[in-house]
């Protein structure tokens, strides 16, 4: 819908290929906000995001395992957690995580990804469980690409 990648392609050469994980256009915008090539701002964002993601995953897991709550309540909570993380992953252009969050949000609303109704709450919970697993996995892969001390995109601080 938006033409992020029309121009401003000068720093294309420094962008590694994150594959389907990252929308380069969006992520570039984040990088552009860095004051210098140390990438302090973007690095802190990415680090914060992975922390936030992990926190959210833990919350999602807790809700999934909390048998005391009734299913409706659980799905509602899961949906808003999904939406929450979808927002930040979309902002950073982390598409794969965003897509899993979308699944969590949708099934939390008892809808399929296409927006059709899914009345079976058990099915919804299972779908969310699966999406959580995918999201975690994607997050780990991406975190490795981004922050790995030897080959990550963001090199460790000089200090």
């Amino acid at each position: 819908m938006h033409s992020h990648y029309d121009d401003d392609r000068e720093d294309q050469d420094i962008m590694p290929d994150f594959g389907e994980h990252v929308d380069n256009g969006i992520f570039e915008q984040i990088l552009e906000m860095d004051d210098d090539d140390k990438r302090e701002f973007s690095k802190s964002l990415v680090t914060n995001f992975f922390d936030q993601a992990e926190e959210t995953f833990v919350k999602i897991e807790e809700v999934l395992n909390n048998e005391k709550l009734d299913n409706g309540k659980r799905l509602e909570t899961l949906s808003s957690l999904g939406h929450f993380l979808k927002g930040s992953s979309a902002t950073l252009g982390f598409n794969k995580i965003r897509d899993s969050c979308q699944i969590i949000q949708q099934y939390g609303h008892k809808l399929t990804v296409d927006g059709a109704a899914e009345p079976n709450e058990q099915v919804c919970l299972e779908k969310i469980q699966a999406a959580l697993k995918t999201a975690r996995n994607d997050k780990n892969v991406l975190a490795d690409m981004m922050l790995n001390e030897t080959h990550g995109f963001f090199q460790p601080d000089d200090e």
Partner: protein
Amino acid sequence: MANMANSLLNMVIDGPKDGNDEESHPYPDSSSKSHGAVSAHNSDCLQAMTQHQEHDHFNDNDSHISASASTPSTQAMEEDHAWSVATRTTTQSSIDDTVTLQRHVPPTHPFAAPDMSLIFDFSPVPLLLLSSSCCITRVSKRFCQDWHVTEEDCIGKFLLPFLESQIRETGASKSRLIAEAVDDAVAARSERTSKAITVKSAFTCRARVIPIFRDAELVSIYLEWHERPSSEVLDNEQVQPGLSTDEAFRILVQATKDYAIFLLDTKGHIATWNTGAQLLKGYTREEIIGKHFSIFYGKEDLDIKKPDMELDICLREGRVEDEGWRYKKDGTRFWANVVITAVYKNGVHVGFGKVTRDLTERKASESRLIAAYEESEKLKSDFLANMSHEIRTPMHGMLSACALLLDSPLTERQRDIVNIMDESGQILLQVINDILDYSKLASGSFSVSSDVVGVASIITSVVRAVQTTLPPAVHFELFLAPNLPKSVQGDPLRYRQIVQNIVGNAAKFTDKGSIRVKASVDSEDNDSYTILTEVIDTGIGIRESASASLFTPFSQFDLTTTKRYKGTGLGLSIAKSLAELMGGRIGYRPNPERHGSVFWFTARFKKIKSLEQIQDWKHQMAAKDGSPISPIQPDVTVLQQRLASVAGTKSILLVEDNVINQKVMLGMLRSLGFRSIDLAADGAAAVKMVTGKPVGYDIVLMDINMPILDGNEASQKIRDAGVKVPIIAMTAYALKGDREKCLEYGMNDYVPKPVDRKFLIKVLATWILEKVDYRKAYDERLQQLKDCDEKLHRLSVSEGVAAARRESVDGGSKPGMALQGDEGVVKGWASPFREVDQAQASNAGVRQGTFQEPASVRIPKMLAQRTERTKVGPLPLPSGDQGAPMLSDAQQGKQELPNGGFAEGEGLNQLPPVSDGEISPRTLV
């Protein structure tokens, strides 16, 4: 002797008494006859008795017993066709049968019926009697007559071979019909009627078969042959063998399973019940007969007395049909189609026939279809919304580039090429717009917005735009009725589109002469005006044969000129749909004065009630200017620089719950030069902060989906508190509907998420650089608009025209453009052609794309070639009343609004290029 005679007499008299206890001589003379024959031969005596029998069947038994033993009396009886005739020639069993029968005829009463034999023989119905083994034992005279046979042909024959020999048609199968009826009758121990057969004598008949039983024993089989008219034979051949028509219908109705078919009495109580009814409604016959049929209706229907209503209508109209929910015995409901028919017998109303079908399945599939259709419509509309953006955006980019290129120093040849590019681009854009509009109209997703419309200013601006494309031999004449309202409520964009289309067509097809545009009030009521707009040209005109299909999509009335007159052929059909959307009509007639065409259309507009209302629209329109579809897309870098120059003094509130998004937005805003940025993590906090300092922020960026209080509600609360700070929604959904939703909640614009930097720059530039600060009071603002209005109006007047005007002032004549209205001459030039806020105007500088001349003077088009465009500063203010609105205030009542000052806002998107990079999408028609 006397004793002997007495004893003899006694013997004769008593003899029968011994033979049959019940026997007695009913007639005294009978005994005297016997008495007189005492001395006679016994046979004489018997003969006398036999003769007597002719009159007295009660002696039948006696005579028969005697006859069996005596030949002469037998002969006598043969002549009389007595029962014994049969017995002599039939098998032993049938003799037994006959005897049995005879024994049981009780000769009891003097007034009882005559001899059965007589009845049998002389019955008008052909009769046949069979033994239990189906051997013919007796035939009636009528049978012999009708079948053209003699007794001898029949008696003793078995039925089947006999029929086979008698039946005219392919005997075997037909005779079987009778045999089957006989078998059925015997098996069922009740009467049956066979299918019709035709015998050799051309006698067509059906057999009514009556088996006669004594206890479990089959005694005889009695067949009546009923003649049937031949037509009925044919009818009956279609009916199951052995069924009468009535019976067939009864069985048909009874056995039908898919339909509930039953009768109601005149009051609506159920009288019959078939299998279908039982299956459908769940009631058994015993449960339901006698109940009122309203038992099948739901509460809502009962509340409105639907059952009674249906019977009423049915009585009046003979029949009533309904579809709706009906209830079964178990309380479940089904979607039923019900037909009730009034039933009359011999002209007397006897009740109602009711046929109910279960359409639940069909109903379900219907709703599935509808859902699927709606889904596809939605997808289509979403697709269109996206496509319109996706296609138009690069087109605008290209056209902007062309315009920029044209402004740079170019060689003659280069300029020609770029002009071609530009022109083709404009046409392509028009084609795309047409097709998008058409598909939107076709899909019904075209909406008419509600803004301020300045009819006069729209028309003049269209005329002005089209004028540039006219050959010098054509001149425009503009007639605006003096009572034309300055501002009305409606969709200015759509109105302009129609005007542009028909004016453009007129220009396209007119090589010399004039194009006259007239606008007047067609009708007026308390709330609305209907405005009639006419365009009269002296062009090539339209052949009568073509005029019928003028408004049909993709029709171009003259294919030979297609190459010359470019277009999709959609223009007029779009104009037609648009006019209808605006509650009006569109039409064509030949020019009555000279060769050419008259196109006219009407459109209904609401009257504007209050100043407040106008201000609201003003806001909305202002919001639209910042929309992504806006063709005004100044270079982002320029905007960013300009934004950076003021950003330091501006204060922003960012409302966002997700910390990552907060950081990114903060980063982005800081990189744009903003330093004063407050943060709110949810809607409630935002409301508190904004209402805490109602003039503190220059702009609010509002996330929509947030805990505690979402962005929509928060915005509403802020508006409710009377704070007018621009609120920009940040939403992940960026389709048209969502945007409108944001506007509904009082927000001014939106940025799609994830936030694109360039997009954000544009929106911020719109609201910070271009819009008038919300903190300024209304009065001040109005004054500003008015000033701006006038200033622009002056700017729009070319130096040449200004000079002309000054001359005309000097010459003592009325200045400005004189408009010949139907009801007089309206003076003064129409309102300015566009609304641009001062800031924008002064920043961008105003380029004169076209020159405006007084329309009353026939002035050949002063070609405003792009190459000749130069930036001009504000022109000297014309003196006198040139700046006054076109229509006098007296005519317009007290409303002292700058005419078109608002209404022209939409014109921004529509006009030829006026400032750097601006290109209109709809310049050409």
